């Protein structure tokens, strides 16, 4: 009982703090100078229509590389944690067959999900989307595949080779930026192209595609590890 009272007290204290923050916050009317700089220079300097993607992949590219490294370590860590021999009673468990709805539904919408994932990945510099988002869409398709066909095995070797290759090419593109352009992961190593077309914005679509492949493969491996 005292524990509940204490929990309630802690939540109330946080509620008071949050209420103070919301009460003292007034909606912004102008942008910060940094935001204005990004808004002006991403379309002009990088040639990308989606400003968030421009920030993520070029101006904060090093950060994104770190993020991908975190995802890689999660895939590896989950693999270490869950790769032990399965518990005895789990082996005895009977896998329930998927319902007809899931099985037939997956057949119809799986190709559409993968196609949509590829579209989101390749459209990242033009409209809402990008490597991370598209990779997550692809991984959700893999999850549906696992639900619809419990016996299906993912080829871990193939996935890890693809994923490592994408990572190596990503870093190589970054180093190429040191040499051909102004710095690590600078997207000016490829020509800017015509604004608003699929092949434009320098190296951003290429990096986006690599990110999408890497994130999709990593998330699929993580999901598969949980299935055991």
């Amino acid at each position: 009982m005292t524990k509940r009272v204490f929990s309630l007290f802690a939540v109330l204290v946080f509620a008071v703090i949050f209420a103070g923050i919301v009460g003292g916050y007034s909606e912004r009317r102008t942008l910060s100078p940094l935001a204005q700089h990004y808004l002006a220079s991403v379309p002009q300097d990088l040639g990308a229509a989606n400003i968030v993607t421009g920030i993520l992949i070029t101006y904060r590219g090093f950060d994104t590389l770190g993020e991908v490294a975190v995802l890689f370590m999660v895939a590896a860590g989950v693999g270490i944690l869950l790769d032990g021999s399965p518990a005895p009673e789990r082996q005895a468990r009977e896998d329930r067959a998927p319902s007809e709805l899931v099985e037939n539904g997956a057949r119809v919408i799986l190709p559409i999900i993968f196609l949509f994932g590829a579209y989101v990945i390749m459209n990242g510099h033009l409209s809402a989307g990008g490597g991370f988002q598209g990779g997550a869409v692809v991984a959700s398709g893999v999850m549906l595949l696992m639900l619809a066909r419990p016996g299906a095995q993912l080829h871990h070797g193939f996935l890890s080779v693809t994923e490592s290759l994408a990572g190596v090419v990503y870093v190589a593109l970054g180093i190429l930026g040191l040499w051909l352009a102004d710095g690590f992961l600078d997207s000016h190593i490829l020509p800017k192209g015509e604004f608003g077309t699929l092949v434009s914005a320098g190296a951003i679509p290429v990096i986006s595609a690599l990110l999408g492949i890497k994130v999709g493969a990593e998330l699929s491996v993580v999901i598969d590890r949980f299935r055991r």
Partner: protein
Amino acid sequence: MGLPLSHILMVTGFALVLIGLWGMLTHRNILRIIIGFSLIDTGLHLVMVATGYVTGGTAPIVDKALPAAEATARSVDPIPSALVVTAIVIGFSVTAVMLAFAIRIHDARKTLSIDALTESQW
């Protein structure tokens, strides 16, 4: 004009944080604690996105609806959105590792209750 949009988003986000905190503090099941953590995570993402909203702003994507010349005048702040993408990925990573540990604990103790782990409390 009514309630400003960013305030609605912020209140929603903070409410999610409080629900998640309450869930983490009162439940004894590890999976429910992880769900509480995810709620806190999502709530904070909402709050972060809300701080980037500028009155009357639109999505920071240059197209027919938002010519490049008007981008600085009519767009929301793109920086919180870019930060939240990072935060979502980190939140996913932490959740995945927590779930993996929960599975290991269940293998070892045959229960998901944290009451079974009192000897490693301190």
